[in-house]
């Protein structure tokens, strides 16, 4: 008995060690971003300039910033008006797109999950393929449409195609399918209409799916790079995700703090919504 307990403890120690070692692979880069925020640009250049073709020797990184300073932060705050323009652009593109997805994808997913109609399976396969096709593969067709609609070089060029992304439909469908049919039947027997069932049973019981799909969409759109690069020639419409790639070596300090600020909304939304993500696409189907 005693021996067995000992053995158990040893194996769980090993499990913790494996897990924590893997976590280190994530904590170290994150620590570097965070500590980089408190260093001056020149200091950073000294440490990592070599990989950006400036300086020589090997890269180094101090365990703690040697001269901790908020200089980069102040620089970003006062000397980089472009940053705020791009932050605002990101909001103007991402928020309407996510809201639009909510309006369009929720009923579509409800339709796929709840009703039988001709060609449903065929359409769903099409939705899946469209969701997987890499952006570059459909780049010509998208470009031609946006050009035809005269919305290239406007926020709409990012928003409209995003609203009709089929990814949230796919995720939400899985959740809606997990709602037991008996609930719906019972409501119908009580004389509830289809709209009532959709709003009062579907949306509340499928909310974990709706929220997790929208969180994933938000993260995707917040970090999108290819779409604005292709559809927005006019840099005044560029979102924040394109701010970082164009920072020069001389502004290294700013790039770390800008990374942090850019990550912040996504991290907050993620932490808030993690429990919805965890409710799982699959569990809802199995447990009933």
């Amino acid at each position: 008995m005693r021996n067995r307990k000992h053995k158990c403890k040893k194996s769980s120690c090993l499990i913790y060690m494996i897990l924590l070692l893997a976590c280190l692979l994530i904590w170290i880069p994150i620590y570097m971003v965070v500590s980089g925020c408190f260093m001056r640009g020149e200091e950073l250049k000294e440490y990592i300039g070599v990989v950006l073709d400036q300086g020589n020797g090997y890269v180094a990184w101090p365990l703690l910033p040697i001269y901790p300073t908020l200089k980069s932060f102040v620089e970003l705050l006062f000397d980089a008006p472009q940053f705020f323009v791009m932050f605002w652009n990101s909001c103007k593109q991402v928020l309407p797109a996510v809201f639009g997805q909510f309006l369009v994808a929720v009923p579509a997913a409800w339709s796929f999950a709840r009703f039988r109609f001709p060609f449903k399976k065929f359409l769903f396969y099409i939705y899946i393929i469209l969701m997987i096709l890499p952006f570059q593969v459909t780049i010509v067709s998208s470009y031609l449409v946006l050009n035809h609609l005269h919305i290239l070089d406007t926020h709409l060029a990012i928003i409209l195609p995003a609203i009709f992304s089929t990814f949230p439909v796919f995720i939400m469908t899985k959740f809606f399918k997990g709602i037991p049919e008996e609930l719906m039947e019972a409501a119908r027997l009580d004389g509830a209409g289809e709209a009532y069932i959709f709003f009062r049973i579907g949306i509340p019981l499928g909310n974990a799916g709706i929220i997790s799909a929208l969180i994933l969409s938000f993260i995707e759109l917040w970090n999108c790079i290819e779409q604005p690069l292709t559809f927005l020639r006019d840099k005044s419409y560029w979102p924040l995700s394109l701010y970082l790639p164009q920072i020069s070596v001389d502004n290294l300090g700013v790039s770390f703090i800008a990374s942090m600020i850019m990550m912040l909304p996504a991290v907050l939304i993620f932490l808030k919504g993690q429990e919805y993500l965890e409710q799982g696409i699959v569990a809802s189907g199995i447990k009933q």
Partner: protein
Amino acid sequence: MKIPIEKYIRTKRARKETLLGIGFLLPSLIGVSIFVLIPFMDAIRRSFSETMTRKFVGFENYRVVFANEAFQLAAKNTGKFLLVCIPLLLVLSLTFSVLLYSVKRLQNVIKTTFLIPMVIPAASIVLLWKVFFDEYGLLNKIMIACGGTGTDWMNSNKAFLVLVFTYIWKNIGYDIILWLAGLNGISESIYEAASVDGAGSLQKFIYITIPNLMSTLFIVTVLSLINSFKVFREAYLIAGDYPHESIYMLQHVFNNWFTNLDIQKMCAGAVLVAIVLLGVIVLIQKLTRSDKEEIV
């Protein structure tokens, strides 16, 4: 008399369901048609014709694409990348989720940690990767300090490994969450019953856990496939239009064709990719689904 009425009710109900189904789907379907489906049909048409003269040329564009060396290299690399990284990600994430499932303390901290890479901006990852994987980066510094020799990770065929690592690093958290949800869905009583019958933990894993996770497998595989195409972002930001040939992917080819306005090739290529993906999806679905469960 009885049968026609029943039939009438059934068809009436079916008609109502069809109307409702299409009604709920319509806003999405119209938008998808305008922004993707109709343009894609147009791409199919273009793939069989010449851009300037609009003359029908049969499979000529397809022949050109197949003969294109860049396309061949990229298709080979993309296929290799998918075949390496997706199974690897599935196995690793399942292993970690089983490990994580078995521990009580710190579970949430670890889970959240694994999720964080998903939200790190691609450009920040690129800067960090330069610090780690550059010829004069941290990784080489460590390897040399340990008595090894350094390699130029990003500009040799090691770039492929870096890309696989990036993909796993970025996506393992989400897959773990999905697997954990699947694991949580398996009733504890099945395991208890198996224990009573004298099953060991390995047997329980093979005969209970794995079969019960099959429906999770479909969705995890599909989402991993989607995300595998998104590593292009990092690859592109690190190495630009023409990276080391070991990570020259289909997206690079399409991007470069787009820059050169090679419309015919792009359209034929897009149709080919769509057909292959359709095949892959049907295959994944056949492999992971039991007969009783329909896709919708």
